[in-house]
């Protein structure tokens, strides 16, 4: 078991580097040879973010408040990831996609890396340079940098989401657009629901 876990950590790290340098090739490998054990280091990485988020966002630095915040965020992210992946997989199957949910979910889980990077980057920036941004040249310059980084991570996320649908469901571009078109209103409503419940302002998709 320990050996398998070490191997999965190695495989996870290799895939994390791969989705930066060779996303297409890496997704082919994740889809063909990846194991669900790779989700263990991913969960550990996400927990690290949830802990950071609890410390930055919790109203008081008390164990009960921090734990409650940590659990609330963790449960919400897990529920969101399962819901969105099931939705996309279900719609994909309706549109003629082939493939197991397990394989698709593994690929989808890697699309959480850009999301995690954005949330971690924003949390740390919130601590070091808290909002609001002013309209002074320094505020504008920081805004340009912040928005550029956000856009890069967003486009990276789009590429990985496309690849997870392409390899996980063996679909073509038109059908992938179809899935996104059908799922977008549901995801929009879900995000509004999360916002109303005070869980996420920007959904952790």
């Amino acid at each position, binding site marked *: 078991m320990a050996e398998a876990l070490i191997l999965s950590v190695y495989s996870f790290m290799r895939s994390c580097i791969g989705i*930066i*340098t060779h996303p297409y090739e890496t997704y082919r490998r994740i889809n063909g040879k990846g194991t669900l054990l790779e989700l263990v280091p991913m969960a550990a990485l996400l927990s690290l973010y949830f802990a950071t988020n609890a410390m930055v966002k919790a109203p008081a630095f008390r164990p009960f408040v921090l734990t409650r915040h940590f659990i609330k965020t963790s449960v919400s992210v897990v529920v969101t990831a399962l819901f969105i992946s099931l939705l996309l997989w279900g719609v994909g199957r309706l549109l003629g996609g082939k493939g197991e949910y397990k394989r698709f979910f593994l690929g989808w889980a890697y699309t959480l890396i850009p999301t995690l990077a954005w949330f971690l980057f924003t949390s740390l920036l919130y601590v070091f340079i808290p909002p609001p941004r002013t309209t002074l040249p320094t505020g504008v310059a920081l805004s340009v940098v912040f*928005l550029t980084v956000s856009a890069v991570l967003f*486009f990276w996320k789009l590429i990985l989401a496309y690849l997870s649908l392409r390899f996980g469901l063996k679909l073509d*571009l038109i059908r992938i657009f179809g899935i996104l078109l059908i799922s977008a209103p549901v995801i929009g409503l879900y995000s509004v629901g999360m916002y109303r419940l005070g869980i996420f302002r920007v959904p952790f998709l």
Partner: protein
Amino acid sequence: MNDPFYERFQKRWNEITDLPPQTVGPFTPYYKMITKRLKVMPFPILVLLSAGIIIALFVVFGSGITFITTVLQRGF
């Protein structure tokens, strides 16, 4: 045939032909041109594209883009 090189080639061939090539009608050459650059190290292109979009937003909205940043910075 038990040639290990041939077996590796066969395995790789099966991997690659698992998915049919993507075509988008008359736009296929453009699609191939774009995706070729995104398949390997897409970040230089993504940075250029994102910087271009954000600079265009700055030209349109001026210092109003700081409002978007403030909203997003509170959004995590």
